[in-house]
Each structure stands twice: as C-alpha cells, then as structure tokens.
C-alpha cells in the first residue's frame, strides 16, 4: 500500500531507480563513464532523443500519441542536407534552421488538425501522416548523403561553452520551462484534458485548441531533434528518424508518464531517454556479438517497459 502510494505521488521514482541501475551497470562495463570527456560525448549523442521525448511527453500527457515524430526528424535531416549542403555558409545554415523549425510546426499542425478538429484517432492519424512525411523525406533526399558545413556541426560536436556540452544547458532549460508552464493556466489545461477530456470540455476548457497545441509542440520539438541529429552526424539521411519514434514513446513510458494521459511530466521522460541511451552504451560495451545486438536491445526495452507492470502484479497478488 505504501509503495503504491509513493509511486503515484512520485511517478518519476521508478524511472530514477531504473536510471541508476543502468548507470551502475554501464559503470561496471565502462569505467570512464563518469569522466568529463565521456559524459560530454555521451550527452551530445543523447540530446536528440531527449528533445524528441520531451515533445512526445506533452502529447501523451493529454492522452494522445504522435507516431509521426520520427519522420518529421527525417524531413528535417533531408531538407538541411539538400538545401544547405556541405559547402553552405553559416548564414544559410541558420536561415534553414529557422525554416525547418517552421516545417516542424506545420507538420505538427497537420497532425493537430486531423486529431483535434476532425476528431480522428491519434494513433492511426499520426501513423498515416508518418507515411506521408516519410515519403516526403525520401522524395527530398532519395539516398543518404549531403550534409551541413563542418564549421557549424563542430559547434555542436566539439566547441562547448565552459567545457560542458550544450545538453547541460538545454535540458535544465527544458525542465525549468516545464515547471513554469505547469503553473500557468495552459499547464493545468494540459492535465485536465489528459485526465478526462469530456469533463474538461464541460468545464469550459478549450479542449480542441489544447490538443492541437500539443501536436504543434511535438512537431516543433521533432524539428529541433532533426537539427540536433544533423549537427551530430554532419550528414543527411532521409530515414534517420524512423527508429526514434519507438524510442521516444518507450522513454516516455519508462519515465512514468501513463499512455492513458493525465499523469506525468517531462523530467521523468527525459530520464527515460537518458536511460535508453545508456542501455545502448551497455549493449555496445558488453562485447555482444553484432548479430545479437538488435535482440538484446529490444529485450532490455521490453523488460524496462514490463517492470512497472510486474511490480503492480506482485503487489496485487499479495494484498
């Protein structure tokens, strides 16, 4: 009884425990994990998923889901690689960063329009748009190639301010702005819609607008993720976002946000995203045969997803 009380009060508790467990395992396999350089290197790889997860968390909080985020990431990568190119100037790159953010907002608005105003089911709608966006990315850039100027990419990859990677500024900023948003009327509306949309509607919450806005946020964050991952790799790939959708949803679930909506926040999912990144580290440092890596990776993800369920199951049996 006490445990269930705790986990309801602090949805992040379990995600924090899982995070520390994988961190310890990673430390055991790779002792340099806590050295400054390794942390910076890890964080620059983890940051894209963290951003994507934060956007997904907002959608899931209101009871929706956005399966199209990965393909929005892909569109951004394809656009940057073809419109800016390896020979582009810094100004050109920055202009296109702005444009792709608008593209992300537009893509999110399309999702939001179908889900909130036409009242289609989020799962199938965003699945359909993921096909549309994914096709668009392949249309813009049929094969991996192109990229952005190394000068710009290096700002993300090596030139950190004060010896700390950008992630150390971006992630606290995200969490802080979430804490601020929670206090506003908009933040309360998010939880109200996720709890019970019909009841929220009856108490004059602008449900449709709120739902619409979450998809716009998610599209924007996906575009930001696309920029980040293009900076990280320096090159374009029209399918780079595909595997990220599941990872982002998994991270949200591990982070203690229920897919049914109304519970959770952003800090837990961010921890979840970091956990997934560390799991990947573990798989690559554990000297696992290359052919086994996909299997092991997904098994760990499934186990992490099942963990809360197992705990609930055992507790129910005891009482």
């Amino acid at each position, binding site marked *: 009884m006490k445990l269930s009380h705790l986990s309801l009060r602090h949805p992040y508790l379990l995600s924090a425990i899982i995070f520390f467990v994988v961190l310890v395992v990673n430390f055991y396999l790779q002792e340099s994990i806590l050295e400054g350089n390794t942390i910076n290197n890890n964080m620059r790889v983890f940051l894209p998923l963290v951003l994507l997860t934060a956007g997904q968390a907002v959608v899931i909080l209101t009871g929706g889901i956005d399966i199209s985020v990965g393909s929005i990431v892909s569109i951004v990568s394809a656009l940057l690689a073809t419109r800016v190119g390896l020979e582009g100037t810094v100004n050109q790159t920055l202009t296109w960063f702005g444009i792709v953010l608008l593209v992300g907002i537009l893509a999110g608005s399309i999702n939001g329009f179908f889900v909130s105003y036409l009242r289609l089911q989020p*799962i199938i709608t965003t699945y359909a748009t993921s096909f549309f966006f994914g096709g668009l990315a392949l249309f813009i850039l049929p094969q991996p190639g192109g990229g952005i100027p190394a000068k710009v990419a290096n700002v993300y990859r090596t030139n950190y301010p004060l010896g700390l990677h950008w992630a150390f500024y971006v992630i606290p900023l995200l969490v802080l702005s979430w804490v601020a948003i929670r206090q506003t009327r908009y933040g309360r509306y998010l939880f109200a819609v996720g709890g019970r949309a019909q009841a929220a509607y009856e108490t004059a919450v602008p449900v449709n607008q709120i739902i619409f806005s979450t998809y716009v946020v998610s599209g924007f964050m996906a575009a930001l993720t696309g920029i980040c991952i293009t900076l990280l790799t320096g090159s374009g790939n029209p399918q780079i976002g595909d595997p990220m959708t599941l990872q982002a949803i*998994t991270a949200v679930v591990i982070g203690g946000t229920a897919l049914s909506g109304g519970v959770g926040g952003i800090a837990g999912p961010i921890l979840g995203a970091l956990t997934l990144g560390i799991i990947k580290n573990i798989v690559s440092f554990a000297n696992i045969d290359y*052919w086994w890596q996909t299997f092991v990776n997904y098994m760990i993800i499934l186990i992490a997803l099942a963990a809360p369920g197992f705990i609930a199951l055992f507790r129910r049996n005891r009482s």
Partner: protein
Amino acid sequence: MKKISISPPVAAVLLAVVLFIFSGFLPNSFGTNTQAAVSQAVNIVRLSVFLGIIAAGQTLIIISGGEGIDLSAGAIVTLSAILTWMIVQGKDERVLPALVAVLLVGAVIGLINGAGIIFLKISPLVMTLGMAGVITGVVIITNHSNTPGRLAPIMTRVIARPLFLGIPGAIIIYVFFAALMWLILERTTFGKNLFAIGVNRVTAKLSGVNVTHMVLGTYALAGALAAFGGFMVVGNTGVVFLSLGQPFLFPSIAAVAVGGTLLSGGKGSYFGSMAGALVLILISSVLTTMQMIDAVRQMVLGATLLIILSIYGRQRGFRQ
C-alpha cells in the same frame, strides 16, 4: 434531411471498382481489351490475398478494443516465412509440419503480446512494437549466415499458380479462409464476446465474459493468422529476406480502417478488411502503372488513408 448511408465495406468495393476502371484508361494498361482486363483483375485479387490474410489478425485485435493494434504483424510474417523456408527444404511432405510449426510460433508470440497487455498493463502499441523489435532480432540471429532453405514444389503449385478453372490457388484458399473468419466472428461465442469486449470491457466483464482469456486468445489467434500470412507470402514469392513482412504492416492496419472497422473497437467485419486490402493493392498498382517512385507511393498511401478516415473514421465530438 435524410442522410444517404452506404456501409463502409460496400463503399470500399465500389471504390475498388472505380479505381480499377480508372486504371484501365492509363497508358500501357489494358484499355478496351476485355481478356487483358479480366486477367489483370484476377491478378489484383490474387495480390490482395496476402494483404487480406495478414489483415485478418489485425481485424480481430482492432475489434477487441482497448486501443488494440498489432505492430508485430510484419515481423511475424518475416519470421514465419523464414521458418517455413528453413523447415521445408524443398520437400513436399514437410509442408504440413512447417505450417503447424509456424502457426504455433505465431500463436506463442501473440500470446506473449496478450500477456504483456493484459497482465502487465503495457499499451498494445508499445508492447507489439517492442515485440516486433525482439522478433526482428531473432530473425537477424537465425538468418545472418544465410541459412539454407528451399520451397517445396507443392507450395508454389498451390499458392502461386492457377489451380482450378484458371483460378489461382491463393484465391481459392482465400475464399475458404474468409468463410472461416466469418464463422469465427459471426457464429461463435468467441466472436460475440470479441465484439462485447470491444464495445466496453467493464460491461462485458460484468455480463460474464472472461476478458483476460478473450484478450489472450485474440492476440494468440492474431499471431497465428499473421504467421499463416507469412506462410502464404513465402509460397508466392519463393524468396526470403529480412524486410519481407514490414511492407505489409502499415497496409494491414490501413485495410482494416478502410474496411470500416472502428479503430476504437467493437464494430467491424472481416469483409470490410478484405475490401480494404483490395483497395490498397489497387491504389498501389495504379501508382506503379503511372510509374511513380516509392517515395510518392508512400505519400499517396498515407494521404489516402487520412482522407478515408476523415470520411468515416471520426469520433464523436465533445458537444454531442
């Protein structure tokens, strides 16, 4: 004002006919040649068989409600195709054991999906997506060294060639399969309970339906049906590769939606999914005739699904 209403399966069939006639007017299509038109029609129905069978399990899961969806269907198809290929080894007498084996494997995978969903309360979307990854991992482990295998001649003869009066064997199997699905959904307690838990699990439980068993059974059956789909696909193509089943996944869900099965569960039919599969195969065939590249085909499929959903997939508004 009276609203004209056509049931979605009928609408989908009409759409298929219109699309087919339209495809005749395209350059390098059949035009006014009746014989070519008939053989083209038969071919399209034959192609829709594989998608139709894979969509069968999807239909059951979506009808069962609870945000049910099976994203592991594509991976099960690949695994089952590769297993069939490895077990058969070109011997006719091994076909039946292979079929039994893949059906069992599919059912076990489905059962694990169901157990995760009902006991561990993992959302079906995440559970089946994670399972798809695990299965793909298994396929990579078993198949990375290009395990030898070969199809039995009898499979090719029955599935890929004309069997009776010039009708391809696949279509004949499909007819029996569809009759079986209809029986399961409309004439058994299982079918009745399936619709009941799809509408409302709490009321179903209160009226004496064992929801836990129903969910486990539905996912297990769906896994077996997807595995049967893989068996049929490999019988048709004769080759196996890692991404064999993946292209069927999205269309299998789309076919169910196009066929008018409510994605929130509780309402739908397998005939609808069959008609939906036909429509999707036709769209993709029209796009091929028009020589569209893959990227554009993907976009058109996505957009078509959105449009069809906007017509009859809408949920109730808050005001009502």
